[in-house]
Structures are given as structure tokens and as C-alpha cells.
């Protein structure tokens, strides 16, 4: 009896261990190649301090991306607008659906406290990225509109209530596009390592 019990428990333990290892391996491998499976909220979009619906602002109101993300046509960072820019409109627009959220913006403005928006798209420290040349390439060389240009990497923001990352933004993602469009750009060195890493 004890002997049989040992064999059964060893077998069960082996199956359990193998399953665990395989599951962990699958999770790590697919997270390496893509975005992780949305298990236990690992891939949820970050919770923003103020519920800001891009659906309302982009799809309904038709505000251009560059109106709030002012630096996107000028420099490296797309930039999140200052509270003043929100209040510029929301001084008069109180909203029908979510007045408490708009009141939060007004409070931040009155108390001189910036809003700590959560960053959605993070690149590692050793990657240098500038929005300006990418937007310039997509709008001027590829002839896309500004919103379509932004959607190339950021997805359909106009349909997102909570903004989430849609593309993996791993190195392969960048290099695929850089390789395919090398002949279209003026800068022939866009597949050089030091295009992004320095």
C-alpha cells in the first residue's frame, strides 16, 4: 500500500510540475513575442486619475490629436497637455455625462496641482524615440492624415474609453517598418543601431 501511494503521489506531482512549467513557459514565450495574455489584469490599460474618454473628445467632438498633444509635430515627446489647456475648454463646457470628473480638472486647476496621468506606452531607457520625424514621414511621405498617422502605432484611439497599448513596440516592430520604408526616406541610415540606441 505505501509503495503504491508513493508511486501515485510521485506521478501526480510530476504531472502537476510539468503542467506548471509548461504554462509558465507558454506565458513567458508569448509575452516575449507579443503583449502578455490578459490574465489577472496583467495587460489591462492603466487606471487614470481622471476618467478621460478619448471617444468623446476625438470621435464626438472631433478634436485633432495635435491640439492637446501639442509637441507631437515639434519634438521628441508627444506631451500631455497642461491642466490650463483642459480648463481652456472646460471653463465653459461642464458636460452632461460626467460632471464630477470635469470638476476634478477644475479642482486641479484651482489648487495649482498637476494631474498625474499614468503613462501607457513605455519604451526602455536605452531606446531613443522622437515623434516628430515619424509623424512627418507618415503625413508627408506616406500621405496619411494626422489621425491615421497616429493610429499606425497607437491604434484606433477614437474608439478607446481607456487608452491601451495595441502594438507590441518591441524592436522587431520598429525594425520591420524601418526596413520596409528605407528606400522612401531621405535618411538611408535608418536601420543603423544608432538610429535609436545611443
Amino acid at each position, binding site marked *: 500500500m505505501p509503495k503504491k501511494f508513493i508511486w501515485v503521489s510521485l506521478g501526480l506531482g510530476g504531472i502537476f510540475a510539468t503542467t506548471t512549467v509548461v504554462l509558465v513557459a507558454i506565458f513567458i514565450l508569448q509575452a516575449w513575442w507579443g503583449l502578455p495574455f490578459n490574465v489577472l489584469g496583467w495587460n489591462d490599460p492603466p487606471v487614470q486619475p481622471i476618467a478621460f474618454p478619448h471617444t468623446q473628445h476625438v470621435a464626438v467632438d472631433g478634436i485633432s490629436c495635435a491640439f492637446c498633444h501639442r509637441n507631437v509635430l515639434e519634438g*521628441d515627446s508627444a506631451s500631455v497637455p497642461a491642466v490650463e489647456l483642459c480648463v481652456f475648454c472646460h471653463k465653459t463646457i461642464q458636460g452632461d455625462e460626467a460632471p464630477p470628473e470635469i470638476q476634478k480638472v477644475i479642482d486641479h486647476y484651482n489648487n495649482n496641482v498637476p494631474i498625474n496621468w499614468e503613462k501607457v506606452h513605455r519604451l*526602455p*531607457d*536605452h531606446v*531613443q524615440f*522622437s515623434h*516628430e*520625424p515619424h509623424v*512627418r514621414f507618415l503625413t508627408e511621405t506616406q500621405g496619411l492624415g494626422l489621425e491615421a498617422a497616429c493610429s499606425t502605432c497607437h491604434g484606433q484611439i477614437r474608439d478607446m474609453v481607456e487608452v491601451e497599448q495595441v502594438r507590441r513596440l518591441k524592436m522587431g516592430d520598429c525594425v520591420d517598418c524601418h526596413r520596409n520604408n528605407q528606400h522612401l526616406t*531621405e*535618411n*538611408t*541610415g535608418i536601420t*543603423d*543601431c*544608432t*538610429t535609436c*540606441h*545611443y
Partner: protein
Amino acid sequence: MAIQHKWGMVIDIDRCTGCQACVIACQAENNIPVNEKVDFLSRRAKQWIRIDRFWEGEYPNIKARFIPVLCQHCENAPCEPVCPVFATYHNNEGLNVQVYNRCVGTRYCANNCPYQVRFFNFFNPKFPESLKNQLNPDVTIRSRGIMEKCTFCIQRIRRAERTIEGKEGRVLNDETMRDGNYNPACVSACPTETLTFGDLNNPNSQVVKKSKNKRNYRLLENLGTDPNVIYLKKVDPHHQKEGHHA
């Protein structure tokens, strides 16, 4: 197609006063942690550009000589073939570049560099609290276990290329580089214009003109590394007179 640049530097030793402004500018621009006394004693101080000092003659006729030494961006760089992971290579702009995220820290390159201008991060860099807001966001902070070296301030070159050539559609030459402050930090900081930076492919650039000076030489030329940094010998009429006597 954009012009393929070949970046180079001319260092006029006759103008150098050894003031170390270039060293400080480099430390600030490239997120190099503050070197302490113990770092120098253990030979782990990181200075992408340093001033080598020599004493010449004997007291009372003693003279101090200064040579700024930075990565020579050799055409036949001894550091490149020894890297097992291709973390250092020559790019299409004549720069010897170090890709931090590829480096695994074998230190072969530093061992093979005759100019001693490659530095290894033995520890994670530590910055005092007061310097944390001063860090340059355009430059990666190198973590422990990787090699680093002078990049000719490639972050400024890249910015110049995408702003002047890309956005504004102008030509990148000495004037546009200087006006936009796109020259490397050491060149911008030098008060005596010892250092000149520019495009060796552009025949009108100051670098090409100065490099044709008959005082030109390269550091350790006999090794055949073919550096892109050209030095101009010190003019010293007094010294020549003494030589004549002997």
C-alpha cells in the same frame, strides 16, 4: 538621398590651455557620474574626454603640455574586431559606436584600445540627489556591466540631422551645426576653440581646412588605426631654438 557624413575632429594643441572645460561639459552632457578620488585611485574613473598632462624640461625651464584625448573614432578600430557580440562597430557616418544594449561586458575592446578611452561600468552609476534633474534625457544611463565611450555626442548629431536636414530641409554644415548648438558638448564648451568638429566629407568645412595644416598628426599613427581625430602640433619657437643649439 541625404549626404553621407563622415564626422571628424581637429584638435589644435597650440590653443589648449588645459582648462578642463571640455571634460566638465562632457560629464554633464553624457550622464557620466561624478568621479571621486577613489575612482581615480582604482583606475575606474570615467572621462570620455580627458586632458593628458606632460611636463617638459627641467626646473626652472619647465613647461606643462596638455593633450585632450577622446575616442579617436579610428577607421581601423582595434576595439571592433574583438567584440564577440558586435556591440561596437563602425556606422555609415564614420563613427565608432557602442550599442549599450548589445554589450555583454567582456572588456576585450577596452583591452585592445591603444588610447585608453573606453570605460567599463563596474557598478551602477550613482548620482547625487542635486544632479538628478540635470540628467540628459537624450542619453542612456549606462548600467552595471557594460562598456561606454565617447560618441561624438551622437544625440546632438541625430537631433541636427532630424531638425536641420529633415524638418527644415537645410544643409548640415559648420554654420548650421554651430548656430543650433549641435556640436559635441566639448566643442561647444571650449573657450579657446581648440576643438573643431565637422564633416570630413564636406570640402568647405573647417575640419577639412584645418586638417590640411602641415602641423597635423594623429595619435599613435604608427599603429595604423587611421583615426578621425586629427591633432595639430604645438607651435613653440623657443623650443625649436633650443633644438637648434643641441
